């Protein structure tokens, strides 16, 4: 019960927030309502005009008068047509406008959220928020509200005209309404349940088919064709039954609605016929009522349908505004310091960090310094905190205790875009987008010229293979660069990092094995990139590690050893030393 009232409160709140997006169009909404009002009037006045035509002109054999009233009827019809067209398009137009700005706002909001939000929410859900949830609002914003108002106007006008002609006959006509209401109510309730079942069955059927298409080799290898087909027939049978059940409700409801409309007509003829004999009700009135009886059912049916779409639209908007209400944790500095041509010194001082409250620290008292131009390799097992260091450097997250400085300035004093512009980043998954190679390198930054890209590509020897592709730099990549080899993808990411000419390079090495030729190429390329730049590399390859100026050996969030390769192998009982000896021994064996 309290949940119900809570829901109500939420709903009004939602409507208020939706209104914010409709606001720019509010005068158009008013106009649309005005148009609907006029259209409803013109639509419902026609039977009334028919009555006049019959009673005043046809009965009096006045051809001229009949012609005039026909002109009036045609004018009303044309008027209604124009109003309806304009009105429908107008509502769709501002509906789409509202959706457009809402969709962009949601996208912008999600983009601005910190990385943690993306780790916690599956990408699919975020896409749903920006696309299909917005789409669900479409019916509410485009057709919904204005049409509901239109239907109400229509009902009002029909009742008005009916009662103005004969209140007795009006009452007789609407006598079937309670049955219609009850039938609609019954139908909605039954069909809602039946539809849920149908939806489940469709999902079950489709996922069975999908699964068996994907796993067909397994089915065939294990000779399970017949058995799985039996299973499918059972699911298929359930699916069929679910549909047949809904067909049953529809087979009752639609004929019933038609029967009721005809029943109302029968009542009109019976009662009206009697009344006509006694005077008071004319044939024209009878004719008008027969038309009204048919007209009357449409807006009532429309209303009950729109109520449902309204409900689901509100559910969607609730989900959308939940995202809009999410807070961003990483905040911009109020008066950011601008860092001009940094040298690239990095300092971590006693940094403590954890991702969530109530969880253990991921970084514990981490301190190290990277001098300008130094090349630092981080090694350690999965979960040791290597990637977290990168996340913190780029301020995807803010630390809890300690400080992180670049050229002696705390990174929290810089603006986010300034800070990040000093870094060149290469991620483990070698993220590429669908689009040309050029677009992938510049990331749609128009300030970067093609020449700059080619120059950067030369530096990492990527130019050679790009040149061989059809269309060279305009070669279109498929999703995630699937048409290129792993090594080639990595080289493109290198070019991307270089083209911005950053002072600091961050490289999360790919763990996946690449063939030895490409590996040589990649190694050489990364060496070239690192000269003259401060670099931090999460290392998986021995060549990278041995060439580093400093190696950070991480273990469970702590830095256990720091030093060059030479220093570390001399350390008694050192982690790094152990590793190295192990490797040496194995090499002797082979």
């Amino acid at each position, binding site marked *: 019960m309290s949940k119900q009232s809570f829901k109500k409160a939420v709903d009004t709140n939602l409507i208020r927030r939706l209104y914010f997006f409709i606001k720019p169009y509010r005068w158009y909404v008013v106009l649309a309502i005005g148009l609907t009002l006029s259209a409803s009037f013109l639509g419902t006045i026609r039977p009334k005009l028919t009555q006049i035509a*019959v009673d005043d*002109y*046809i009965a009096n054999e006045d051809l001229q008068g009949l012609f005039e009233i*026909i002109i009036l009827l*045609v004018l009303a*019809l044309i008027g*209604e*047509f124009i109003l*309806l*067209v304009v009105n429908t*398009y107008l509502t*769709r137009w501002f509906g789409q406008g509202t959706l*457009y700005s809402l969709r*962009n706002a949601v*996208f912008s909001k999600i*983009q601005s959220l910190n990385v943690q939000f*993306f780790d916690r929410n599956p990408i699919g859900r*975020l*896409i749903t928020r920006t696309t299909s949830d917005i789409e669900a609002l479409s019916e509410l914003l485009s057709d919904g509200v204005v049409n509901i108002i239109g239907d109400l106007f229509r009902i009002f006008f029909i009742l008005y005209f009916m009662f103005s002609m004969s209140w007795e006959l009006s009452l007789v006509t609407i006598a079937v309404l309670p049955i219609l209401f009850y039938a609609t109510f019954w139908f909605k309730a039954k069909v809602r349940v039946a539809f849920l079942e149908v939806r489940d069955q469709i999902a079950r*059927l489709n996922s069975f*088919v*999908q*699964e068996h298409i994907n796993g067909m*080799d397994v*089915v*065939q*290898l*294990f000779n399970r064709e017949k058995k799985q*087909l039996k299973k*499918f027939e059972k699911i*298929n049978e359930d*699916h069929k039954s679910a549909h047949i059940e809904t*067909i049953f409700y529809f087979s009752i409801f*639609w004929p019933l609605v*038609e*029967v009721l409309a*005809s029943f109302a007509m*029968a*009542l009109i*003829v019976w009662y009206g*016929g*009697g009344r006509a*004999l*006694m005077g008071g009700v004319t044939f024209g009135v009878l*004719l008008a009522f*027969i*038309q009204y009886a048919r007209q009357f059912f449409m807006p009532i049916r429309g209303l009950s349908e729109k109520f449902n779409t309204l409900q689901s639209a509100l559910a969607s908007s609730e989900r959308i505004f939940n995202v809009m209400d999410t807070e961003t944790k990483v905040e911009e500095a109020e008066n950011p310091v601008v860092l001009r041509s940094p040298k690239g010194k990095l300092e971590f001082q006693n940094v403590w960090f954890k991702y969530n409250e109530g969880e253990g620290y991921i970084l514990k008292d981490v301190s190290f310094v990277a001098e300008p131009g130094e090349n630092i390799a981080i*090694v350690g097992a999965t979960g040791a905190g290597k990637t977290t260091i990168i996340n913190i450097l780029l301020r995807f997250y803010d630390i809890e205790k300690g400080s992180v400085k670049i050229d002696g300035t705390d990174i929290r004093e810089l603006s*986010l875009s300034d800070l*990040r512009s000093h870094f060149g*980043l290469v991620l483990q998954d070698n*993220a590429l*987008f669908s689009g040309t190679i050029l677009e992938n390198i510049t990331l749609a930054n128009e300030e970067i010229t093609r020449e700059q890209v080619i120059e950067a590509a030369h530096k990492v020897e990527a130019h050679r293979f790009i040149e061989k592709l059809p269309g060279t730099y305009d070669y279109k990549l498929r999703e995630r660069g699937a048409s290129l080899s792993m090594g080639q993808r990595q080289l493109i990411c290198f070019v991307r990092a270089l083209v911005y000419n950053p002072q600091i390079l961050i490289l999360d090495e790919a763990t996946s*094995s690449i063939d*030895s030729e490409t590996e040589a190429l990649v190694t050489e390329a990364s060496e070239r990139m690192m000269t003259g730049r401060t670099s931090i590399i999460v290392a*998986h390859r021995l060549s990278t590690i041995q060439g580093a100026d400093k190696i950070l050996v991480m*273990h469970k969030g702590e830095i256990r050893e720091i030093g060059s390769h030479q220093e570390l192998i001399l350390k008694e009982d050192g982690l790094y030393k152990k*590793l190295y000896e*192990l490797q040496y021994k194995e*090499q002797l064996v082979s």
Partner: protein
Amino acid sequence: MVLGALFLTGANFFLVWIPVLIRQTMDEVEALSDSNYDVPDSLFQTLFSSEAGIILAENSLYLLGSVALYGVLLFATRQTLIVSSRKVEFDMRNQVLEKLMKLPQRFYAKFSSGEVYVRSTEDINKVREYYGPVIMYSINTITRAGFVITMMYLVNKELMFWALIPLPLISVFAYWITGYIHKHSTIIQEQYSVLAGQAKETFSSIRLIKAYNRIDSEQVKFERLSEGYRKKKLRLDMIESLFHPALNFLIGISLIIVIWKGGAMVIEGIITIGNIAEFLIYVAYLIWPVAALGYTTNRFQRSLASWNRIEEVLDEDVEIESSSEAQSIDLKGSIEFKNVSFKYPGSEEKVINNVSFKIEAGQNVAFVGRTGSGKTTLIQLIPRLFDPVEGTILIDGIDLKSINLDELRSLIGYVPQETFLFSDTIGENIAFGVEDASKEMIEGAAEKAQVKENILDFEKKFETILGERGITLSGGQKQRTAIARALIKNPGILIFDDSLSAVDTKTEEAILKHLRSGLSGKTTIMISHRISTIKDADIIHYLKDGSIAESGTHEELLAKNGHYTSMYNKQILEEELAEI
């Protein structure tokens, strides 16, 4: 089907009686009032006791009778016609899936899984729409129009002509607009996918985008697509906003023509006002069936296209089938490849190039090599997931093609590279390849595959459901379940396609130990990237670009100091790095 058509015809027959009876009542009332009929004083008397009352009541009862019969027959129509469309759909689904089960992997290599999926789901839906609604609407239009036009003709030919004029327009208009809407909905759907794709790319690479300060340009890109979507949608909206008003307009015109021409005829004394009422209702009855005619013609074309796509699948050759003189064998387990080459359908490149080797019964053989060197393709030829383009493969000296396919596959326990488990219980998944596996057999297989303990940790043990509606197993657990699935068959030949990659070294050792002791005498073929898995094999083949580059035992290959050795060295280093 035929029954449904009869019901529908009957329903329309009774429907036509409604306006006829209304006209009759009105005419009789008019006649009564013209004949200076002595009207009773109260309405009650008029309706219930007078001569007029009897006439009214009689007509009204007929009317109600027609209405009721119409309703019942309409109900019966829906219950037969639409229900039978679901039955047709049911049969079609079974038929398509049965075919899919029979089609060789060559077919699945040719078509993307998405395409096959669309054909076996959405296309069937579209064809069903033809069988049900389209047939119903067509019969409805024809019979109803038949009855209504006959009645109109009987009443007054001239008025019939006038009343029918706008109707063909409605039909053509509905046809055109349905086509337009369909075409533009497809365009909009495409733009929608592009929009969602953009959101996906941005959100899944958010780190990169933030690091490179590209948030604003991503926003611009998205807004551009969003704007494109809005524009395309509005183009459709333009036509859609024309649809209902225009239909409404055409209906209105028909009615006005009836009142105008009919009114003139009433004045001339040719027809009665009752006839006008009758015609107004006739026209109303005809509108929707006529509009539906346009709509169904359009639908029909589309379901025809879908039907063609389904037929393509149904007509696809089942290339790999057991030959007629298939023989059964008493398996010992030797396998021989003689000059075998293979290329995938639609590709020119030979993935396997003239490969020959022999595996003795009971041997343990391993294939190594880089990704893309053809290892998986090679061993897929053994259970005949594909047939070689050239050369022959023999088991115990018999050509694979002359062995009954079902029997051949039942002899082989295969653990594929990509572990595929079904959304079913773990027990069902393990027992996948055997009829009526006992509980002991399932548990035994799970134990041998070192996955029993994990399974017993789940609350529902072997009854635990996997997949979307159930739990997700870790990569290693999945692989071990797939191994159990292969072991439970107690096959003579066991094939592991990189099936221990996600299993940690200790568990791997335990599984291998079991295989060595429990499977002595059985032929085992293994693909692995991990040296530790295969170093004890009787013979190791190193594949390079679809050919065997090196063969020998672990020691022999290391001594050669070739591909295998360099792979070995690299791996040792990587392993230690990971262990720090």
